[in-house]
């Protein structure tokens, strides 16, 4: 690229004006009471699954036939399953996996989405129509059947490479992330299309900034607000997707009790042990609901057009 050397040291353009400052964002975010409550709820849930293993050091696979299908008690605060395994310990362990899948899949989806959207948004020739066609194509794919199909076909091979736990984790994260990048890509492209014509971008370009510099230092920072919101929602849909797979019996194997897997195991014992299904179900619901509320709060907080 021509002239990436700057004309003078001071010509290092001032950082692009971030849409809203951090303190301002927090002030706006606080107005959304449910979102603030949700941050607390989600924080507690994350804390519980992260440190819960030390506070409640019960083995997840300790079988006790003297205590099968028991309701909540002091010995087993969330009851036991059909093998007498402690559900609290299993939920803490499974929660880590469920949340980790959610966040990891969000990162995959967001990175792919930002890259595709940025490429499409910066291209002025054939790349943009092609990438948008691809995005539309992916949007009209039947996601759950395809997700199931890929897992069905590739399960055994990945298990050999990464081991049972790692293989399923890598595959589920990759597949969920790989099938959910489209909303982010569309958002990023739309932002890029309008931002790349703005004066401050032109000014930077006239100073000889490379396309890479333009994208990473000027355009992307200004497009990041909606991406953060979309990424937040992505976490909750990834958690639902993983739970759905496990609930259908095609996600994690039985010895890795994610919340969806617990529900799958519990669904045939609803009449005698409703607690077994209710606790993991409520955990999924609370996590997803609080993430969605946080996303809504962020949407209000990061939208610069909104005057609060």
């Amino acid at each position, binding site marked *: 690229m021509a002239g990436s050397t700057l004309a003078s040291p001071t010509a290092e353009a001032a950082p692009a004006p971030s849409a809203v400052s951090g303190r301002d964002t927090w002030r706006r975010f606080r107005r959304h009471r449910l979102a603030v409550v949700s941050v607390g709820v989600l924080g507690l849930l994350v804390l519980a699954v992260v440190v819960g293993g030390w506070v409640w050091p019960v083995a997840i696979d300790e079988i006790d036939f003297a205590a099968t299908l028991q309701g909540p008690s002091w010995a087993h605060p969330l009851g036991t399953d059909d093998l007498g395994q402690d559900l609290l310990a299993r939920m803490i362990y499974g929660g880590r996996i469920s949340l980790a899948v959610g966040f990891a899949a969000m990162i995959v989806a967001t990175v792919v989405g930002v890259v595709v959207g940025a490429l499409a948004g910066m291209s002025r020739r054939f790349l943009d129509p092609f990438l948008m*066609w691809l995005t*539309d194509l992916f949007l009209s*794919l039947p996601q759950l*059947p395809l997700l199931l*199909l890929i897992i069905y076909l590739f399960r055994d091979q990945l298990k050999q490479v990464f081991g049972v736990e790692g293989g399923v984790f890598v595959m589920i994260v990759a597949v969920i992330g790989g099938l959910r990048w489209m909303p982010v890509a569309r958002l990023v492209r739309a932002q890029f299309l309008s931002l790349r014509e703005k004066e401050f971008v032109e000014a930077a370009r006239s100073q000889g900034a490379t396309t890479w510099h333009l994208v990473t230092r000027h355009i992307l920072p200004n497009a990041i607000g909606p991406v953060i919101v979309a990424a937040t929602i992505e976490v909750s849909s990834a958690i639902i997707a993983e739970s759905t797979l496990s609930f259908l019996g*095609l996600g994690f194997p039985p010895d890795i009790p994610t919340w969806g897997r617990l529900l799958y195991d519990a669904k045939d014992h609803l009449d005698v042990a409703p607690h077994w299904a209710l606790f993991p*179900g409520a955990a999924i619901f609370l996590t997803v609901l609080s993430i969605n509320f946080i996303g809504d709060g962020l949407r209000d907080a990061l939208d610069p057009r909104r005057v609060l």
Partner: protein
Amino acid sequence: MGAYLLRRLLIAIPSLIGISLILFTVLALAPGDPFGELATNPNVPPEVREALRAKFGLDDPILVRYLHWLTAMLQGDWGFSFASRVDVDDLILQRLPTTLFVVGSSQVLALVIAVPVGILAAIRPYSLFDQVANTLAFVGFSLPTFFTGLLFILLFSLTLDWLPFVYQADIAATGWRWAWEHVRQAIMPVCVLGFFQAASYTRYVRASVLDVARLDYVTTARAKGLSDGTVTIRHIARNALIPVVTLVALQIPAVFGGAIVTEQIFRIPGIGSLLINAMLANDTPVVMAVTFVFACLVVLFNLVADLLYGWLDPRISYR
């Protein structure tokens, strides 16, 4: 209209081809040989195996295999189910109506809830009704269908004993009793799917009505002295619902995903539960065919939504 229809059809074809390419690539990349069983079977001599491979074209170049596969799929020659020893297309045709019935009714239910609630919420933004509707919508789409399904079974079947929780395709009754039993067993699955979709549709309708309500022509209509009801229904709602068609179309893949889950919970004999059972039984021809059918259904309904859009909005019809 005819030209528009043709254009839309021509757009649908590449996306169908694209989807079939993706499906085929997934299948072709997958490890494991469809004839793996034959390879490990000592009773099958290697030359027979090679002959079979040649007969089914497994050693052909990949493009040739794709074209073979695609023509077979288009001709309805979907193979033979390993597990139930029936032609795959018979199996699917048998089960498709049930799925379409459940999905269709749930969509009707979702729209019947979402349209009035969304409009009412938007014409009084930030009112108590709006806030309650908004919160409920959030709860609605944060409750995954598999959990609502289990909650419904727990409440209505096990605790109250009002509704059956296993769906039966053939009910041993006739006349009104047959219809009544059908409705009773469909209530829970339809509600589970319908409520989930209604939650997101409500938000679409609300956002769309909010956008339209501040346009100038609405002010004109009010200034003419039309009543609030007339303005809302005849002027705002009619225009606001057009973009909702597109948003509903975008939800179609998710709707079929939800159908798979509900069919599995309530043991509805539709193609979703067929897919899951085929996967658990390693029945690859059925798995491929059902996935392909789901893809076709999504493309088909997207096409319907496009046509509906063209019919509803004369501004874009003949572009």
